[in-house]
């Protein structure tokens, strides 16, 4: 008997497997299908709608390994009622999951090229699946360069993984913070200042950016001054997504809906929008 396609508006029940505290206000949750089946697959850069029953639904990027079929991983910053409720779920409690939705990072287009990932703050979370993918298929790519900026040392995500990635061949991982205490021995300065320490080969570089919009504006400028062309730069945009399938219009961004046309866009497509205020 043919099975009916899943209604994208109906959440699937997932159970909270584990919760890790990343920083003072940011947590990573592992969700497992309540029926014990395999998770729906996803591509790096996609997001899900996570439903905290009785509280609300949130668009959250998937931050785990796309080749881990048993669970979906999300890194969430607790900034409001719904995110607080989500990160407060205990192992065993239920959460609704819709998706995955949206387009993905251009990892196929980046094959054979150097991959430059620039993340700011929580923006490292949607890029982490791309890092896993590049490291797993290392021979398909040139150099992997990860530039990560955070507010302070205690706000940096995945610090152990950053150190482990930095030890991989042909991989350069640099982190910086806007405000460093005296005990911090790493870089202090904005994420664009890290470009001084990498030698890009612009003609064979694909750059993927995720972070606050204004940070991405500064980074695109920096990349272009290094010679990277706009069509080789991709950004993950963020807006208030509700339906996640392009019906409601909450996430409209100029002529696009972030949920279905994005969240990953080539810079050349959104450049003129980024330069406009209040869009």
């Amino acid at each position: 008997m043919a099975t009916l396609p899943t209604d994208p508006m109906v959440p699937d029940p997932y159970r909270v497997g584990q919760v890790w505290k990343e920083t003072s206000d940011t947590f990573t949750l592992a969700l497992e299908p309540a029926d014990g089946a395999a998770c729906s697959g996803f591509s790096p850069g996609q997001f899900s709608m996570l439903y905290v029953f009785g509280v609300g639904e949130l668009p959250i990027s998937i931050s785990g390994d796309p080749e881990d079929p048993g669970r979906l991983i999300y890194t969430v910053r607790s900034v409001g009622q719904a995110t607080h409720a989500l990160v407060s779920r205990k192992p065993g409690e239920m959460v609704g999951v819709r998706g995955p939705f949206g387009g993905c990072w251009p990892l196929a287009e980046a094959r054979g090229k150097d991959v430059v990932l620039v993340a700011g703050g929580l923006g490292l979370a949607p890029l982490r699946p791309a890092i896993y993918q590049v490291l797993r298929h290392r021979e398909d790519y040139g150099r992997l360069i990860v530039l990560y900026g955070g507010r302070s040392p205690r706000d940096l995500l995945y610090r152990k993984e950053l150190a482990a990635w930095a030890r991989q061949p042909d991989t350069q991982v640099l982190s910086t913070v806007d405000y460093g205490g005296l005990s911090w021995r790493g870089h202090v300065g904005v994420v664009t200042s890290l470009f001084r320490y990498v030698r890009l080969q612009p003609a064979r570089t694909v750059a993927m950016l995720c972070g606050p919009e204004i940070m991405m504006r500064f980074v695109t400028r920096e990349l272009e001054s290094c010679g990277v062309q706009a069509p080789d730069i991709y950004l993950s945009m963020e807006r208030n997504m509700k339906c996640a399938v392009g019906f409601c219009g909450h996430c409209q961004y100029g002529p696009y809906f972030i949920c279905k046309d994005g969240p990953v866009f080539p810079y050349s497509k959104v450049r003129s929008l980024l330069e406009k205020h209040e869009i």
Partner: protein
Amino acid sequence: METLERIVAEHPFFAGLEEQYLQLLAGCASNVRFEGGKYILREGEEASQFFLIRHGKVALEIAAPHRGRLTVETLGEGDILGWSWLIPPYHWRLDARAVDLTRAIALDGKCLRTKCEQNHDLGYELLKRFAHIMERRLETTRFQLLDVYAAHK
């Protein structure tokens, strides 16, 4: 062994500078090293040098009342440290501390100032290059001031 002239000539900051100026700069240059934790320069002291960092990391610090010393930026390999030698009253505006063992080329700013006054072409060349660094640091400072990762954004 690398000569100072070659090191100066190969530094991106001096890329494209005429040979006669490179020789002149090398004449004002010396190798220096600072152990981790040692102060390279102190706020308020006379600014008579600048540095081409060859290796290591330097923290630029400002002491703030009730907050202690704050690191506002770090510099590393290839960076230029110090421009107060070029601008009156020639006093450092912040502290610079070697975070790790740092090796650098020190250039005598007093000597260069005199040469720049005598040779305005050299002075203009140097000023253009320092203006570029100042512009970059101003832009990154503006970006830093935006505090883009704060929760309220």
